[in-house]
């Protein structure tokens, strides 16, 4: 195949420039600024800052509160990722079995996808309303004194449920198209080879979905870690108090409520490193395997 090329280096650079500038202004510059300020201690009234070296980081490592938030974030991410993937896969498998209805079904689920995180949070507030939220009533029916915003476990549960609910449609769409891209004849061959439906699922369907599932795993971890900010902020009504929060939310709380810009910056640098690691992991694995054909 013949490769088209540019005759000068300036044209491609000029074409890329707007994109590079956006990345520089909105990503590299704040990132660099965060790295820099993570080595300073800001005066709480904004009158200047002192260089403190890695003190912000060592403070974090010994901070019990930070460890607690990190532990919660880990559990929260694991739960949100697991349930939004598992439920979406279940729904996709069921939808795929009745291909006919799949279209309207798909559209119905797509709607949730179109809801902005804070709106999802508000809907969650309604569901978990103390006086007449249906889910609150359900929990209370089962003997759990559910108190959103007042009780740690209640808020944590609500955060997981709303975040999962918000993410299922995205996962569903990907799983469903993954399922539908499995050749019909391969499934039919499995139908002849294996009489057990669950056997066919785990031996044939699931491995063929693995590339989709892996991609979604990374997307979902990132989502639970970072994109659930709006949901959390709404559910805790911007009043963390005794409520659980995730690492990203803590960056915001410490930086903008506590005015501890140095510590907050150090936290965001740690999160950046986490994302970097996740990305490297993803590319490594994608390169290595999980694709067939």
């Amino acid at each position, binding site marked *: 195949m013949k490769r088209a090329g540019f005759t000068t280096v300036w044209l491609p650079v000029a074409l890329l420039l707007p994109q590079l500038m956006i990345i520089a202004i909105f990503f590299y510059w704040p990132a660099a600024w965060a790295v820099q300020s993570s080595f300073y201690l800001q005066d709480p009234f904004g009158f200047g800052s002192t260089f403190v070296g890695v003190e912000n980081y060592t403070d974090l490592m010994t901070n019990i509160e930070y460890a607690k938030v990190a532990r919660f974030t880990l559990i929260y991410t694991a739960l949100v990722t697991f349930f939004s993937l598992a439920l979406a896969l279940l729904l996709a498998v069921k939808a795929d079995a009745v291909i006919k209805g799949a279209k309207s079904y798909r559209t119905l689920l797509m709607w949730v996808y179109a809801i902005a995180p804070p709106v999802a949070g508000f809907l969650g507030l309604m569901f978990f309303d103390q006086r007449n939220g249906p889910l609150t009533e359900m929990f209370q029916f089962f003997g759990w004194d559910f108190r959103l915003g007042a009780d740690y476990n209640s808020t944590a549960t609500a955060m997981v449920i709303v975040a999962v609910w918000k993410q299922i449609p995205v996962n569903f769409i990907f799983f469903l198209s993954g399922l539908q891209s499995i050749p019909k*004849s391969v499934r*039919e061959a499995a139908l*002849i080879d*294996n*009489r057990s439906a669950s056997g066919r699922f785990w031996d044939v369907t699931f491995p063929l979905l693995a590339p989709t599932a892996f991609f979604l795993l990374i997307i979902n971890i990132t989502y639970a870690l970072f994109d659930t900010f709006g949901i959390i902020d709404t559910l805790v009504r911007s009043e963390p108090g005794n409520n659980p929060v995730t690492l990203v939310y803590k960056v915001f709380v410490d930086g903008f409520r506590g005015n501890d810009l140095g510590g907050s910056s150090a936290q965001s640098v740690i999160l950046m490193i986490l994302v970097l690691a996740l990305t490297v992991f993803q590319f490594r694995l994608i390169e290595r395997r999980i694709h067939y054909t």
Partner: protein
Amino acid sequence: MAQVTLKQVRKTYPNGHQAVHPCSIEIPDGELVVLVGPSGCGKSTLLRMIAGLEDITDGELMIGANVVNDKDPADRNIAMVFQNYALYPHMSVAKNMGYGLKNRGASKTEIDAKVQEAARILNLGEYLERRPSQLSGGQRQRVAMGRAIVRDPELFLFDEPLSNLDAKLRNQMRIEIRALQQRLGVTSVYVTHDQVEAMTMADRIIVLNAGRVEQVGTPTEIYEQPASTFVAGFMGAPPMNLMTAQIAAGRLQLNEETVLPLDPPAIALETVLVGYRPEDVRLGGDGSVVLQVEIVEELGAHRLLHGTLGGQPFSLSVGKDEQAATGPQPITLPRDRVHFFHPERGSRI
């Protein structure tokens, strides 16, 4: 091994399309039966009903002595080879072949032995650990065959298994599949739209047309005595010449000038369709029948002469040693090679 019996089996798809009209077929034990017909005539539908991949709308399907209408595909003791091979892309060749056995509770040593044996028969020994994506089309085809034979099924089902291969490989695999089937003696149903495959492989051919069985017979019967103009036209390349002739005063007339030196069939009709296979007609003769040759087609081993006879298109096949030229050529129509068909119904007379 088993015989397969279809009793008034039909298929109407949920959208109301009747893909297979009620049909009754008996496939004797150990035979290879070819379902042949143009694309869309219902071959795959019929085969998939036998496999259990498609519900049977009405009628009864028996494999051996059992009615299997309501059995799952996995419980019918069949193996199927698909057009695109349908191998499991994430499994090695050995796993692909052994998967069905594993699910039937075979021991690991038994699976290994069977897979090794199939690999030996199909020359796949060195590829057992490869993924299907690392194989050529012909090798994938063999793996699909291997997957079918390791299970020792009662019935093989083939849905156009060779149509994704190039012509040379197709000819080779055709012979291999036929030899393998004869050696194993497994009853087989083979779907194809290729009349050459049908003629060369079949013990018995079933010609389908628009969801109906047109004719059932051995390749010779189908070729020598086509039951209808459809079969006559579909089986054989180039197809049989079909001419409309008037029956007037005991003579067969193509037009004012051309009278065929044949006795018309003893039937009360004004017109009849006269059929001749191109290779049954000879060049030369007493000049009573003259073919206007317009094109000579060189095919190496033989030549095709295309032209008109009494104003109707007509082709003639001659050996490569016979001289052929365009223009008027006297020909001979042997009396014992003629086929007559009903002008409206197309059925053989």
